[in-house]
């Protein structure tokens, strides 16, 4: 498995949850993963039900089997100040720059600089080693911006190269691209079995490929169990209403006659959804990427659900040597 796992996806598909589950799944026995977020929304802290994450790596969970998950909310401004401190020993001058609006300019307005800083921090964590030469983190999982912005976000080299043709930001961009375009990285796209997210996934994969970024897998999230197939629904409608009502009553359901119609409506809706999902699966198959499938969590994405998803991912091969 690649060292840097980037998780993107359309808004609302659950990419933060998938990223967190992936970090848990990769933290098998004796391993350590780092889960990073780059958009300042504190989604990880909310998911793990902890205090807002500071700009520092801290242990957030113990994975099943004993691995460890660390988390970091990367803040572009702090990353830039650290960076200036590291390379230029700026000290108080950093604060002066901040006061003048220069840091704000560099991290929010200067095109691409923010993205270089964010991806740069993640790549630094990938490359960081212990004294004995072992990597500090076996895997780094990034909860990345949504599909619509992921290629531009990762393709910092192109964006920055046109502007900063020399200097440390340029070098930083080069180094970052070296990691991002290598097999050390895999970009996964989370989708639902619905038309819009699937279309966006197909578009996103095409964009990533065109930019030479390594696409990992499609993660089909919130897959609901197929309870009834179309044939069953067809069988249920029409002449069988009375028989169904009798069967319901026989199974101990009160007021069965009045329930048949709404139950059949639900079944018809279900059948239509199953059919739509099949169409969307066909579109996904056309992309030609391996997929992970994660079940819909009836009770929402809480910690218990997260561990369940991690278990599913391991069943599907995540974390296997």
């Amino acid at each position, binding site marked *: 498995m690649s060292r840097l796992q980037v998780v993107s996806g359309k808004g609302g598909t659950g990419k933060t949850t998938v990223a967190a589950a992936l970090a848990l799944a990769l933290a098998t026995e004796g391993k350590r993963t780092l889960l990073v977020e780059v958009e300042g929304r504190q989604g990880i802290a909310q998911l793990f039900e*902890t205090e807002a994450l500071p700009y520092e790596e801290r242990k957030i969970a113990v994975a099943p089997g004993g691995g460890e998950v660390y988390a970091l909310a990367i803040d572009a401004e702090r990353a830039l100040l650290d960076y200036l401190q590291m390379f230029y020993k700026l000290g108080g001058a950093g604060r002066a720059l901040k006061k003048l*609006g*220069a840091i704000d300019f560099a991290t929010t307005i200067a095109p691409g*600089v*923010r993205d270089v800083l964010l991806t740069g921090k993640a790549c630094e964590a990938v490359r960081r080693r212990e004294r004995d030469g072992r990597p500090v983190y076996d895997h780094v999982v990034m909860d990345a911006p949504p599909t619509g912005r992921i290629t531009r976000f990762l393709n910092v080299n192109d964006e920055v190269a046109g502007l900063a043709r020399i200097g440390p930001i340029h070098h930083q961009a080069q180094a970052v691209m070296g990691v991002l375009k290598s097999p050390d990285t895999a970009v996964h796209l989370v989708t639902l079995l619905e038309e819009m997210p699937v279309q966006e996934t197909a578009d996103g994969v095409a964009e990533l490929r065109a930019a030479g970024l390594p696409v990992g897998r499609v993660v089909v999230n919130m897959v609901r169990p197929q309870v009834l197939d179309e044939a069953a629904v067809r069988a249920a409608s029409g002449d069988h209403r009375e028989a169904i009502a009798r069967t319901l009553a026989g199974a101990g359901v009160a007021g069965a006659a009045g329930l048949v119609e709404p139950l059949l409506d639900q079944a018809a809706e279900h059948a239509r959804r199953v059919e739509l999902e099949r169409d969307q699966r066909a579109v996904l198959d056309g992309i030609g990427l391996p997929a992970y499938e994660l079940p819909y969590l009836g009770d929402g994405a809480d910690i218990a659900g997260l561990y369940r998803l991690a278990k599913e991912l391991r069943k599907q091969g995540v974390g296997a040597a």
Partner: protein
Amino acid sequence: MTEKTPGPADGGPVPPAGAGLDAVPFLDIDPVLDDRGTRIIVCCGAGGVGKTTTAAALGVRAAERGRRVVVLTIDPARRLAQSMGIDALDNTPRRVDGIKGSDGGELHAMMLDMKRTFDEIVEAHADPARARAILENPFYQSLSAGFAGTQEYMAMEKLGQLRARDEWDLIVVDTPPSRSALDFLDAPKRLGSFLDGKFIKLLMAPAKVGGRAGMKFLNVGMSMMTGTLGKLLGGQFLGDVQTFVAAMDTMFGGFRTRADATYRLLQAPGTAFLVVAAPERDALREAAYFVERLAAEGMPLAGLVLNRVHGSGAARLSAERARAAAENLDEGRIVDQGPGKTGQRGAPATSSEPSHPATAAVSPARPSASEAAPTADASEEHSSRDTGPDSTGPDTGQDSTTDPDTGPDSTGPDTDPELARLTAGLLRLHAERMRVLAREQHTRDRFTALHPEVAVTEVAALPGDVHDLAGLRAIGERLSTPRDRS
């Protein structure tokens, strides 16, 4: 769950019971659309909750009720553009064909092209030579291609432009899929304050050397700073910025003025904000945050649009009972229909549940599901009342009288394994639906407990995506109708 969890399994504080929808005011959309005083409707909310679709549906509905409407979308899915009969939306409002209604309403739709919008501003405010210099500047090109706030800023610019043209009496705006849902309120200010802030003045200082005496001090600061930034970004980068800033010089005041004007426009009584969400924890958390922020900014909130809400026409049958009945059918066990049976029907259902592997796998967190199911509880009471001499009395009465009599005869066809399997499927499907209902209600009640004053309209989930005007019309219909929660 058997895994070790690092924290409590159920999330956060739970609002007091009784904060159901009955207490929540209904967001009646039609009066808002019909009020000629409503000139701008802004749809905002987290990504993936259906903001753009909501904006388009509102546009269709308003137009069919006689308004001249333009919908400004930010990044619509291709399908959505097609649903309005437009293959590709661009930066110019296009008329949408097929709008019904006799009141002379019209719908136009457009998609924000931020680079085009930025270019147009430059072209409109600078002489041709200067405009060309700006448009060719590398820094400008990156800035306008969409970085940190440009999209949000340009959305607000476009809104201001559309409003100034006065060709439409209602503008419906979608908001950008931002890092945070609030960026579109903040970005214009940020860009504005950058453009005429200290930093720009410093960058521009070399062009004005020999000016006021105070500049000398600033120049010291500047050389330190441009030195650092030059080292960091490369000298040529800073050169581009300086050229850009010098060329844009005369336009900065205008940017700031317009940003301020648009901001005030959003606070004006003719504006209505709709916070859009889905009944999920994250989306509603962002919605709550948004409601608070709008209040702090003095922006007029019309209410919350809750999309993709599930309902059931069979809500009086609880998940537990449905599942128990399905198990009865699985085991080919026909329950005796004796009249005393109804009273304790719930008991075997709950006790048999944990031992059933399938059920346990589907619902790992039973306790929270049942706690969080006020509808299920209520409907359970309701359904047990039904078995008395009530509305559905005749049905059950008939069953319970015929069954014991005809016993083997009537259960004969009922035990048809195919039919039993099918009916069990219907019941499982229903149990799952009820569980979703309970969770959605629980999530929504949290929001309601925090913001009981916010009017809400719920839009029932559709099985598929919207493909045409009829689909948008159907959503408009759902938006403006109180949902039947029976």
